């Protein structure tokens, strides 16, 4: 090859390489699924995930022109992923959320479709108290899906029986039970400290028991120094007392909840109690059905606190999870059809009840009574029906930034790295 040919071939090769690289870049930037398929994102797992998939499959079969595709993520990862994707170009058509201030953050950024014109009569199907979490300025931005998710204590009945303990009705009773269990080498309460959000359950219940609804309402309204409320500070103190009394399993700060580790301690008889949302019942059903069938799982409401202002019937937790449609969706009609026809239709409701989930629809009392996990579901449904007030989990009721900071600070509180005063001072900075 003479010099000229060599030069020519070298430049051709370089050009080809460069073009190849550029071509590679552009094709990988559009991660969109095939057009026409409707993406549904959710954070449920186990049996609840199967129920969602069944609902999707039925809808796809009945509607050959539409393809619904579901994707599932672990809760903590989901929260961060959805935050990033909502601001980008191709968010999922339908995504699950917890309503409240966290959803409002997305609504204010113009990411969520107003469903009011499309729902009309359908909204009467759902429990009205639950719909409050997705209604802003009279407009509805989501529909309930899945389970009513109130928080209560679960306990290991055989362990309680073995040490002659009764489910505690007051905080002092709880402390006494903890002392007994600790002396016998059993972890009194299982806590998924690694994920940090389980810490919130103690916080929100204690604040409500001590101070009623006022402290939360002040924080939600953004009143100056709302986080310094004495009820909040007392709650932090009591939580730290709990840690100091050795109420939680050793190494709780690296035990996860999203991966089912904290509840595993309960059904492998290593811990006696756990404070968690109703999804734990379904989780135990998926992982160790015998534990429930043998009648080893018990439950009780969060204890009362002596001298507290809060109504003892108040309940905390997630009212429900909701499906919302993204404003940028290219499949609006299909997404709305899915939410109206498949989500929480009769078949979906009976599937949910079969896995001991209580959906947020009206008129299912008799169905609940006649079902397998009837005892717990009745407990769930009634505790919510009779609650004077349902405190939505603070981290979803408040806007995203404040909610996330609350979880981080609670993590530090449980490690005794933050005093009640430091907690209030830091959170006051995040008041909206």
């Amino acid at each position, binding site marked *: 090859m003479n010099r000229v040919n060599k030069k020519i071939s070298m*430049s051709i090769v*370089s050009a080809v390489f460069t073009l190849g690289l550029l071509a590679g*870049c552009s094709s990988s930037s559009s991660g969109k699924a095939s057009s026409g398929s409707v993406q549904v994102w959710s954070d449920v797992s186990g049996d609840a995930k199967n129920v969602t998939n069944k609902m999707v499959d039925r809808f796809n079969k009945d509607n050959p022109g539409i393809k619904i595709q579901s994707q599932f993520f672990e809760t903590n990862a989901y929260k961060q992923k959805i935050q990033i994707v909502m601001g980008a170009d191709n968010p999922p058509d339908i995504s699950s959320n917890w309503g409240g201030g966290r959803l409002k953050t997305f609504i204010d*950024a113009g990411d969520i479709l107003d469903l009011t014109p499309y729902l009309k009569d359908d909204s009467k199907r759902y429990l009205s108290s639950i719909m409050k979490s997705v209604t802003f300025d009279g407009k509805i931005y989501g529909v309930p899906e899945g389970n009513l998710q109130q928080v209560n204590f679960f306990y290991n009945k055989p362990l309680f029986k073995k040490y002659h303990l009764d489910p505690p009705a007051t905080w002092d009773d709880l402390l006494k039970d903890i002392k007994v269990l600790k002396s016998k080498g059993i972890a009194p309460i299982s806590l998924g*400290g*690694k994920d940090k959000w389980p810490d919130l359950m103690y916080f929100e219940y204690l604040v409500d028991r001590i101070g009623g609804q006022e402290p939360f309402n002040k924080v939600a309204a953004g009143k100056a120094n709302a986080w310094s409320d004495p009820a909040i500070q007392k709650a932090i103190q009591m939580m730290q007392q709990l840690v100091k009394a050795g109420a939680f399993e050793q190494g709780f700060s690296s*035990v996860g909840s999203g991966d089912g*580790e904290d509840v595993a*301690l309960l059904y492998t008889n290593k811990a006696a109690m756990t404070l968690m949302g109703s999804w734990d019942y379904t989780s135990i059903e998926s992982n160790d059905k015998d534990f429930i069938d043998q009648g080893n799982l018990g439950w009780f409401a969060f204890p009362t606190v002596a001298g507290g202002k809060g109504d003892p019937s108040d309940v905390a937790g997630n009212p429900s999870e909701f499906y919302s449609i993204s404003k940028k969706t290219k499949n609006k009609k299909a997404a709305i059809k899915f939410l109206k026809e498949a989500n929480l239709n009769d078949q979906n409701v009976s599937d949910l009840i079969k896995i001991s989930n209580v959906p947020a629809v009206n008129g299912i009392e008799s169905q609940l009574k006649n079902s397998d996990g009837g005892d717990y579901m009745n407990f769930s449904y009634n505790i919510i029906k009779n609650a004077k007030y349902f405190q939505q989990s603070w981290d979803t009721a408040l806007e995203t930034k404040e909610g*996330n900071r609350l979880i981080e600070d609670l993590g530090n509180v449980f490690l005794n790295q933050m005093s009640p005063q430091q907690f209030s001072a830091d959170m006051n900075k995040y008041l909206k």
Partner: protein
Amino acid sequence: MLGMRMNWQRWTMMLPALIFFVVFALVPMCIAVYYSGLNWDGISEPVWVGMKNWIAVFKDGEAWQSTLLTIELMGLCWITQCPLSLLLGVFMSGKQKHRAVFGVFYFIPLLFSSAAIGVTWSYILNPNFGLVNTILKAIGIGNGNENWLGNPHLALFIVSLIIAWQFIPFNSLLFQGGAKQIPESLYEAAKIDGAGPFRIFFSITLPQLKYTIVTASILILTGTLTYFDLIYVLTGGGPGSATQVLAMDMYKQAFINTNIGMGSVMAIILAVFGLVLSLLILKFTGFNRMDSQKEGM
């Protein structure tokens, strides 16, 4: 490169790599500088605030704490990885039996993704169900509930051990290559003079590996500086802030505090830190002088 002229053929050959670097490294860096001047949560309208984020980062104790932790982790990683990789690499370059088999074994950790390694090790070290605690309990140490990753005093050290497990194979490859290049004649001369194995190692092998040690050190130090995946999976920056190195802090600021501006500030700090570190190491070890190690042979 001294005295080499750049003509159009050399430019054309450099072009693909240059374009790649500009598009994927320089441009994002410049965009990050722009982002660092914003108050933005990723979904709402960004607001320009100029130097406010930068001032906040330098005033805030958390950022300094993260920097200290990062330096601590870099030190721990260097101490656990460099000497061991060196010894392994020299061993594998020798003529001992079965070294090929060992070679395969040591390579296995490198084949796994950081996320997979993180998940697996966090289960092995699980305080209640983990393998390590079960074994320790079986041989009588502890009560089977030792808290490895959740202990604020131990967490960073344990993380550095797992990082070492992941990267010693790679670094030992570097040293293996370096050791193989040492001319036999040096060893033969030493043996004739009656030098024992220790003397040979310290007087011949180690000095000849000088540039490999520098390369490996730069890779370990700058790699640890920006390392994120494994730490995120193992501890998420916890417990508390015990493993909150700069990369974790950057992630937390950007995606959990939803403050992309602050996160970008930390990203730039990281990049500058890495660059300065590499340049310093290169200068002080005389790397860019590129002295030959085979003088007089």
